[in-house]
């Protein structure tokens, strides 16, 4: 039934958008494609699960804890890995390779600590309610996922658009050198950006873990590919693009799984994406922008 599928698509798409937002923010501000973002997403998922099942934390607190932990990880990646590479003027591929390494380390660590098998949130920790609206089964969990994703995105949009912090980040995105000479602590804001982006990735991990109720050490990998596809579709570094691109991928995936082929859902979704890029090679909102040093 179409309405049911649209709800599923909205749920999935809003989490894709949330994940891609952090990804694209780091690219926009730091000019780095942080390929550990998928693993940080996975860490967020495990962190919430651990807090819920070992400390009996309520779900909202576990989400907060997961955001803090993944945000801190993102900050550490920036301070320990990306910063020294920046200081040495490393070429663009170097941070990509370094962050692939971080992703592999985190995935192995998760496997070592939690095993390779699929873990699930205990049934009683999930929001239970389910009601029927116009013939559509709506789980309270789905409402919570969509609400959390959209609230966080709205907060980020507002901060970027209306605050001095946001103006400063947009200034860095255009020219870090000019921004620093106007009194902006560029390194400091690189750290802030890395924290926020990773925290968004971490909460996306919790939401996907809850939606499918399945957590594995490998769950970050397909998400990383999808996130990369979303930000390329939306236009690299473009915030609106990540939102629209994320929702698009969610809808394309769910609808093609439901109506075309359950096995080929991803293939159809990525095929569509490829077709769009043929027409608009720099993405939906992408412009060919020269970045000044």
């Amino acid at each position, binding site marked *: 039934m179409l309405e049911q599928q649209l709800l599923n698509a909205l749920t999935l798409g809003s989490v894709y958008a949330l994940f891609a937002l952090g990804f694209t923010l780091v690219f926009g501000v730091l000019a780095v494609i942080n390929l550990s973002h998928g693993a940080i997403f996975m860490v967020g998922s495990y962190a919430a699960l651990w807090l819920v099942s070992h400390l009996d934390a309520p779900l909202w607190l576990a989400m907060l804890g997961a955001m803090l932990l993944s945000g801190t990880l993102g900050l550490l990646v920036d301070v320990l890995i990306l910063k020294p590479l920046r200081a040495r003027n490393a070429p663009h591929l170097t941070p990509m390779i370094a962050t692939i390494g971080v992703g592999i380390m985190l995935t192995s660590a998760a496997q070592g600590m939690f095993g390779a098998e699929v873990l699930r949130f205990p049934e009683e920790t999930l929001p239970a309610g389910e009601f029927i609206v116009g013939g559509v089964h709506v789980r309270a969990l789905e409402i919570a996922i969509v609400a959390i994703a959209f609230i966080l995105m709205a*907060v980020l949009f*507002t*901060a970027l658009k*209306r*605050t*001095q*912090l*946001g*103006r*400063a980040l*947009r*200034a860095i995105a*255009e*020219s870090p*050198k*000019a*921004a*620093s*000479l*106007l*009194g*902006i*602590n*560029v*390194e400091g804001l690189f750290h802030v950006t890395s924290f926020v982006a990773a925290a968004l990735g971490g909460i996306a991990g919790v939401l996907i873990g809850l939606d499918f109720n399945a957590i594995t050490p490998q769950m970050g990998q397909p998400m990383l590919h999808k996130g990369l596809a979303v930000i390329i579709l939306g236009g690299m570094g473009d915030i609106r693009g990540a939102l629209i691109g994320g929702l698009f991928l969610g809808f394309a995936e769910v609808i093609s799984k439901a109506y075309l082929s359950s096995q080929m859902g991803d293939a159809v979704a990525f095929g569509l994406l490829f077709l769009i890029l043929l027409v608009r090679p720099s993405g939906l909102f992408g412009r060919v922008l020269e970045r*000044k040093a």
Partner: protein
Amino acid sequence: MNTPQTLLSIRNVGKHFGGLHVLQDVSFEVPAGGIYGLIGPNGAGKTTVFNLVTGLLAPSSGTIEFQGESLVGLPPHQITHRGIARTFQNIRIFKEMSLLENVMIGMHEHLKYGAGGIFFNSSACRAAEKRARERAFELLSWLGLEHKAAMLADNLSYGDQRKLEFARALATEPKLLLLDEPVAGMNPSEKTLLMEEIINIRNRGYGVFMIEHDMRFVMGLCDRIAVLNFGRIIAEGSPDEVRNNQEVIEAYLGREEEAA
């Protein structure tokens, strides 16, 4: 050891990139108030001097002091906080922002982030934003751009982009404004307008330190001039002293005449 009138003091500064000596034993002092010019043929090392003063590069030797405090080793944003602002030879405005936002970026140190405040709608945050907006409008009006405040900076003419850069640099509340070839690429009427703006800025009490290779422009504008050639200071003094200096005539003016 500094006389109270000295704002910026550069002593025995050298800079080399590998074996290439760009600056050697450069010394001069920029006094508070007035317009100071650094001139020299292309490739003499003028922009390198600005990059050393603003912290984009570190000197290989020598000292750079601003109001008696060393600037060597400080990151660029902290040097800006101490009261030095600059514009670029190639204009670097934020093209995807409005003029008002461009100027507000320059107020970063004074405005701070207020990222939390906007959501709790704190009165302190709103008041700070309001003050910043008013100040930004004021700075834009100094340069005759206030009626374009909401425009995207990308849509400005070349001359107006330069003026926006001036307004944005002044937003950092500098004591000394560094202008890197402010009239490069401008047509003669734009040059005249910008010259007036630079005099206005001087008259408002800001120190101006400018790089230029348009001799006529500099001679009419500057109170004192240092001449850089092949990385060394070959003359320093009033425009008349510099104009009549034999070494300058040979190194610089002579070449202009040949070219003419």
